[in-house]
């Protein structure tokens, strides 16, 4: 009896191993097919590419910083875009988050509506939004601000809503018990609990938005990216490299400021 059940156990184990092996093989096949489709296995082309890449890198050196004065204004534009875009996102996200949180939403319809809106905003990449806003309000940072801001609402609103849903219900119950109305319950019971996390998410999003703002210029939506694409078009690779280094340096600075700010919250 015990031997037969032991066999049964071994057979189950074996079957599980076969299934796992089959799944792994299928996964590898999908990866191989995808790689082949995009030409990763095209040895000849890759072999051609390597010298071309080396040549390109050679063309980029040494970086050419002679045009640096022209980059200051676009860098400030980029910084302003990230700050303004984040502010728009945060201001719009607060009311949306209370609608999109199960414990504070005024109605189920509004809950699902805002959730879907946030999902939609998150789905449309900011570059696509940049293209649309350039068409709507013309070239320049305004289009970039609107694109960065609108896209950010999707993520900031969702994080805010999740924070609200995780708020401790006990103090909220206490505020309700005093006879406070719904707005007062949110203001006194919920907001003090979620504010630190709201600030943390906002600063984090600002760091992200600065990186997003650096490429907005590629679609004409203002900032340092505009200089980058300009230099690329005239094949001034040494200038391109210099601009990339400048962007890298400012991203590091912005991330540093962001982490310092977030450490001070709590």
């Amino acid at each position, binding site marked *: 009896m015990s031997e037969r059940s032991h066999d049964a156990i071994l057979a189950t184990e074996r079957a599980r191993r076969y299934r796992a092996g089959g799944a792994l093989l299928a996964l590898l096949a999908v990866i191989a097919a995808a790689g082949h489709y995009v030409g990763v296995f095209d040895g000849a082309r890759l072999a051609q590419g390597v010298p071309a890449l080396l040549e390109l890198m050679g063309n980029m050196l040494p970086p050419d910083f002679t045009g640096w004065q022209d980059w200051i204004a676009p860098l400030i534009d980029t910084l302003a875009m990230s700050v303004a875009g984040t502010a728009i996102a945060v201001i719009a996200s607060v009311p949306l988050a209370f609608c999109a949180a199960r414990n504070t939403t005024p109605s189920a319809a509004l809950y699902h509506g805002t959730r879907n809106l946030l999902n939609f905003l998150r789905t449309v990449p900011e570059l696509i939004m940049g293209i649309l806003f350039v068409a709507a309000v013309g070239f320049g940072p305004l289009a970039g601000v609107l694109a960065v801001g609108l896209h950010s609402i999707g993520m900031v609103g969702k994080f805010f809503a999740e924070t609200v849903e995780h708020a401790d219900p*006990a103090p909220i119950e206490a505020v309700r*018990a005093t*006879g406070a109305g719904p707005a007062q319950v949110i203001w006194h019971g919920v907001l003090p609990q979620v504010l630190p996390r709201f600030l943390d998410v906002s600063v984090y999003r600002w760091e992200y938005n600065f990186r997003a703002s650096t490429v907005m210029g590629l679609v004409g939506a203002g900032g340092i990216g505009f200089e980058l694409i300009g230099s690329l078009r005239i094949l001034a690779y040494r200038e391109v490299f210099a601009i990339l280094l400048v962007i890298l340096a400012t991203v590091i600075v912005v991330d540093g400021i962001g982490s310092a700010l977030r450490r001070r919250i709590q």
Partner: protein
Amino acid sequence: MLEIDNLTKTYADGLQALRGCSLTVPGAEVVAVIGPSGAGKSTFIRCINRLVTPTGGSIRLDGTELTALGERGLRGVRRHIGMIFQEYNLIERLTVMENVLAGRLGAVSFMQALLRRFPQADVDRAFELLARVGLEGYENSRADALSGGQRQRVGIARALMQEPRLLLVDEPTSSLDPKVARSILALICELASELGIPALINIHDVGLALRFARRVIGLSAGEIVFDGAPAEVDEAALSRIYGADDWRDAFRQEGEEDRHVAGEGMAS
């Protein structure tokens, strides 16, 4: 005067927490509600200020029927019912003063509360109450910097800030050590008799209940199975409330009911 008649509560998932409870508290009286966990104590007390919506029966406070009230009327009544909680339910990141003033939220306009412009009379009263509960000098401390006993004193001051006509007290001592528990319960009873208002206190510690209450209600499986003076609580009464087997075993703290009470959320 608080009159409760045939109160029932069945939760959405079919749990019958209350099966027809009736109780009249004529005037200033400290009533202890005892019973095993899951007996319906939390639900009972929360039905009175409708943090939990009762399924049936009636509740009258000074003649006003509470079960029929709409949103606005309900807020008006809640304004005069002070509540004290097991976990204090303070807003941890705010100061002691702001937590006490929260007791006036039902009485001030949203704009006043938004700008934290409470009338000077309220602020004066908050200072007095904090001194009365022994927290003079702690006004600007953050709530999360206080000890458990001190936090419960803030909770008491917040409830009194409402100028209550009734005090609902839910397991005020379960999170405190025995010595602090006694002093907190003594304070609550003292204040209730000073104000001349009834207090309903859920408490699982029978010893404390008998020592401080003037009347004891025993809840078991959603029904009131005992109602009498502390002196009448004998072994027969206790086994009726907690079951015939060694009732001391029944003194557990957390139960099914807590989850249900929390599940009623912010609906009203």
